[in-house]
């Protein structure tokens, strides 16, 4: 079974580039060049240099002793929260800004949900001196205020998306509209493994550093680079794709993707795409998305802005359909409780997104001795307001 993209830009039934003609020249330019540019030794050198000295990679793989004891397994946390700007998102923005420079682009646009991708984009734009415009849903601007301030301080223009549900999906629409209206000198840094081909593949390549490091670190720490389980949360699915990447072809490693169940999968307030979605087209690729029978995209709900998205990347749809990865869901309440537990047992405040992955440990049964890697995709600083309100601190 091929779990990766084929020459037509598809993962099984999913993927492709469903874009209006206005976007075609830009997307085609990317498609023709991305592998060549990424494969170039000078690109690799600069990318890895920045990941090391600017982002702070490799991120540690930390054996969480108290959680391990509680769950009766070796729980390793892949510490993407320790990256510069506080999440995995920067792995991708570093890669894409270098690529945009090679393509001669002068202006960068991005969408953001939790604000982590917006901050990571504004950061690399400041680093390289490029103009930056970030689209963010009006509702997310309110619930992620600290990240909005960070983007502004970094010199980015934050534009409020007021259409539709005013969250990540609508910010993505606005960014695509911007790209249509600025067809020549602009690069769109998509923040997850979504969008038209080659974005899902390109973003997963940049994020694959997560599993590349994990394998080495596991080998060093346990003498075996093959974990029993790998877990990650899925919004669009980029931290999960990075965490799965080098394990996908090793079928002994069980992959678990955790979606945001919101108030519960059947409550009408959920973002659990594989449970509630059907095959269709959203934001330029064929995948699975939450929609009405008439094909209108349904507004999702999650306490975590980064998972509040009605679709998943096409490669996830393929991993789901082929049963290569298991897709599960965790509610708002369960994720917040897991965030508190991790904080008080390990001294790590996780992003609420990442807390979804941690929460699934509660539902697993271990014999003892299994090696389990959880992608701690980001830190919880941006979520303090939500945590404080929920727990009444």
């Amino acid at each position: 079974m091929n779990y990766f993209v084929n020459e037509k830009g598809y993962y099984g039934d999913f993927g492709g580039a469903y874009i209006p003609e206005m976007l075609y020249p830009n997307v085609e330019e990317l498609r023709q060049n991305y592998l060549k540019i990424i494969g170039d030794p000078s690109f690799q050198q600069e990318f890895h240099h920045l990941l090391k000295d600017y982002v702070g990679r490799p991120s540690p793989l930390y054996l969480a002793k108290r959680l391990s004891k509680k769950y009766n397994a070796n729980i390793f946390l892949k510490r993407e929260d320790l990256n510069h700007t506080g999440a995995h998102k920067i792995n991708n923005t570093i890669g894409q800004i270098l690529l945009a420079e090679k393509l001669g682009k002068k202006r960068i646009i991005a969408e953001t949900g939790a604000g982590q991708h917006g901050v990571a984009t504004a950061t690399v734009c400041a680093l390289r001196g490029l103009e930056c415009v970030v689209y963010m849903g009006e509702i997310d601007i309110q619930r992620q205020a600290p990240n909005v301030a960070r983007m502004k301080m970094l010199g980015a223009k934050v534009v409020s998306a007021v259409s539709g549900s005013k969250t990540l999906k609508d910010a993505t629409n606005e960014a695509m509209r911007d790209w249509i209206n600025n067809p020549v000198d602009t690069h769109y840094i998509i923040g997850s493994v979504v969008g038209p081909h080659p974005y899902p593949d390109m973003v997963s390549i940049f994020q694959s550093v997560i599993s590349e490091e994990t394998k080495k670190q596991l080998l060093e720490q346990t003498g075996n680079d093959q974990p029993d389980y790998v877990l990650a949360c899925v919004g669009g699915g980029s931290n999960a794709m990075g965490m799965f990447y080098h394990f996908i072809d090793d079928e002994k490693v069980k992959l678990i993707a955790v979606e945001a169940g919101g108030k519960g999968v059947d409550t009408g307030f959920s973002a659990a795409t594989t449970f509630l979605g059907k095959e269709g087209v959203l934001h330029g690729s064929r995948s699975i998305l939450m929609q009405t029978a008439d094909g209108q995209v349904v507004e999702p709900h999650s306490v975590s802005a980064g998972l509040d998205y009605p679709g998943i990347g096409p490669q996830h749809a393929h991993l789901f359909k082929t049963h290569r990865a298991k897709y599960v869901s965790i509610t708002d309440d369960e994720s917040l409780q897991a965030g508190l537990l991790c904080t008080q047992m390990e001294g790590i405040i996780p992003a609420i997104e990442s807390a979804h992955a941690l929460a699934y440990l509660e539902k697993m049964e271990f014999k003892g001795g299994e090696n389990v890697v959880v992608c701690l995709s980001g830190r919880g600083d941006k979520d303090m307001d939500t945590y404080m309100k929920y727990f009444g601190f």
Partner: protein
Amino acid sequence: MNRITKLFKEKKNNILSIYYTAGYPGLGDTIAIANALEKAGADMLEIGFPYSDPVADGPVIQASSKHALDQGMDLNLLFEQLKELRKTVTIPVLLMGYVNPVLQYGVERFCEACAQVGVDGCIVPDLPMVEYEEFYKDTFLKYGLSNVFLVTPQTSVERIHKIDSLSNGFIYLLSSSATTGQNLQVSDTTAAYFSRIAAMELNNPTMIGFGISSKETFDKACKYANGGIIGTAFVKSLSSDKLNENIDAFMKMFRA
């Protein structure tokens, strides 16, 4: 013969096509608007079926789409309404919208329904040419439907020829790469682009759209193509009270 082909055979210039969103302003206005437009001199109609995430559209058509969806417009209802279409309307009619509602309705079922109600063609901006050629073309042709592709100033010559070879109605020239609702400005570079296309002697006729809002911009479009398409400006002019009077007044700008 397909009504679109017939139109372009009989009329070479000054062709006026009007876009409007089904379900806007009133849920039941679809046929009334079509009748009023034909009476007032429109040569062709593009009826938009609304979508929740219209990335190629500016604020005006976004708002009309949202309004239509909120009122309950969907493809089932639209095809139900369109059963009345050919009782009165004789000019060519295209449906315009995004691919996901078509996929959910079923491509074959969609094409069949179009043919049954007398729709002559479709414009689906986010349906890529490769997908169309591989999976949709045969079905479209089986039901006698035209499929219309867009071309922008950035579309390569090679690709324009490919689009021409796959088109069977007309080619939709965008005045610039833009979402709907920007103003048409024929700068030197746009003029050069329009002239370049005119000089290519394509097999298909061309219509210029996006940003035509006045007699002046319509005339400019007609200088370079077989006609012009008006969307945003028309949608903006619509209101529920005095629907017919408003449409007449709008059309007088172009068909005095």
